[in-house]
């Protein structure tokens, strides 16, 4: 729980990791990819405040103690949601698997939610693994990374028929939330790898599932926003937006937040620190203090305490059925939905 000026913020970190990218875990012959991946993550950390930067060694593999301190003790997080990323073509034991996360979760009951994942290219074996993981860890969500390399293939999309088989089975198993992360190496390479239209199709065809598009579809925020306005079950995962822009690029952070509040709305935006890329502490403190920096942004929806409470925890708590202490709840009518519906009705000749 974070407290500021008498207000209590219940914090759900809906996108974080416990990875092992140390050289001992690099796949022989694929070391350059394993090294390139973690160095890329490390450069992202450089976009946060200098006093929060780590050297590369602890960044490659941080300890359980580091995580518990950074996320819960110093970082105000009430519940953290593990989002696994396997990358087994590059990391022998996987980069950040359900098992690795689950083992940590079992040692700290009530602190974590253990999401799992699937890859439709794994076919029947993959379905079996999904079933086992849901049974073993009680997963209510899956993280899908479409750019994962798998046995010669360089990516997949939710439009693939195999993907629907997995989504159907996931739903039967009780999965509610599908976190989608678009990466750059998708098949086929002549198409835009970051295109989110496959999420659009899946969201229409699986209205009972929620689709949280991580990193708000970056670098395709505009395509994501157009899609989110049409699909009631599509959410904006803010990981990278706060971590990568709020400190390093405050002007663009304000614009991106303004656009998201306008098109997607404060009821459908969820905070994620992306730990260990960025520690949650400075992100939460900074976001609670944040407002648009000048009048230049007066066209965008306003932000208030209710907006921030929803984004930092209440929205994700609703998606995952997490109980929120009474003192951190909001009255039912607090805040405002997205403004984009009004925009469609702007009178002829009105100022935009």
């Amino acid at each position, binding site marked *: 729980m974070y407290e500021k000026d008498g207000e209590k913020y219940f914090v759900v970190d809906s996108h974080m990791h416990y990875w092992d990218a140390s050289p001992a875990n690099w796949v022989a012959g694929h070391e350059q990819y394993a090294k390139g991946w973690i160095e890329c993550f490390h450069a992202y950390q450089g976009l946060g405040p200098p006093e929060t930067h780590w050297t590369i060694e602890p960044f490659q593999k941080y300890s359980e103690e580091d995580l518990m301190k950074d996320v819960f003790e110093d970082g105000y997080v009430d519940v953290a949601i593990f989002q696994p990323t396997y990358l087994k073509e590059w990391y022998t034991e996987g980069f950040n698997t359900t098992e690795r996360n689950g083992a940590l979760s079992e040692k700290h009951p009530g602190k974590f939610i253990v999401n799992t994942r699937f890859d439709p290219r794994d076919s029947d074996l993959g379905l079996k693994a999904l079933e086992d993981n849901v049974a073993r860890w009680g997963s209510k969500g899956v993280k899908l990374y479409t750019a994962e390399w798998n046995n010669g293939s360089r990516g997949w999309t939710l439009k693939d028929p195999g993907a629907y088989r997995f989504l159907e089975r996931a739903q039967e198993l009780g999965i509610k939330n599908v976190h989608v992360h678009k990466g*750059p190496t998708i098949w086929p390479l002549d198409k*835009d790898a970051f295109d989110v239209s496959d999420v659009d199709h899946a969201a229409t065809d699986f209205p009972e599932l929620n689709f949280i598009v991580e990193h708000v579809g970056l670098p395709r*925020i*505009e395509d994501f926003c157009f899609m989110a306005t049409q699909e009631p079950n599509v959410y904006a995962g803010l990981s990278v937006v706060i971590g990568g822009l709020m400190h390093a*690029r405050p002007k663009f952070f304000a614009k*991106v937040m*303004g656009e998201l509040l306008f098109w997607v709305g404060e009821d459908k935006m969820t905070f994620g620190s992306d730990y260990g890329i960025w520690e949650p502490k400075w992100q939460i403190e900074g976001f609670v203090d944040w407002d648009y920096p000048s009048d230049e942004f007066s066209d965008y929806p306003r932000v208030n305490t209710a907006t921030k409470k929803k984004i930092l925890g209440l929205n994700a708590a609703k998606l995952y059925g997490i109980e929120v202490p009474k003192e951190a709840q909001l009255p039912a009518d607090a805040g405002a939905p997205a403004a984009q519906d009004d925009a469609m009705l702007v009178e002829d000749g009105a100022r935009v």
Partner: protein
Amino acid sequence: MTTFAAQVSDVLAALEAVRDPELDEPVTELGFVSSCTVSADGVADVRLRLPTYFCAPNFAFLMVADAYDAVSSVEGVRRTEVVLEDHFASDAINSGIAARSGFVESFEGLAAAELDELRRDFLRKAVLAGTERVCRPLLAAGRTTDDLAELTLGEVAPSTDLERLRARRAELRLPSGDDSPLLVDAATGEAVGVQALPLHLRRARLTSVNMEANGSMCRGMLRERYGTRGLGEVEEDQ
């Protein structure tokens, strides 16, 4: 036969015309050119770098191919070498460009078509974002959306943003003359009607915010990765 070899400045000037297709900015200004030399006998050697090891390979390929074409056309350049450094697909891209292969051949089995349509998709986004940049000051100065619907390109005061918008529209073969409407659909070239205009401008603003935010993030990542300035790099307007 040319007697004198080209100057490095000539080659850099040619690279100014090479843009990152997603960001719609010159590779020089973005800091992507890490080195550029021309030997006494006219061999131009250009090294390109990107913000991350995993930047999208299709866009990387387009930039390297465009750089090769731009440098090759400089007078006094007898032979061109363009090398993409520190990228997971460097080998495939560099050998493909050196052999003058297309994209499909360079990524055997991983791509079904060349990149022309992809390039057009991003030019359309550049037109939308550019439209917003031209309209923003007009609206700030008190023009209404009704006014904008009536305006032609020739009636807007000259600016670099306007020139850039016209150039992108011309590239897409959209109407770009003085008597063409300021606001056109980037796919069809049809004028945008008054009714559709507010939403069109909202979408244009979103597209422009996305492009600028990505450009800003790419610059930040490039600086974290290398800590050195590229040739012709221009600081962003913060």
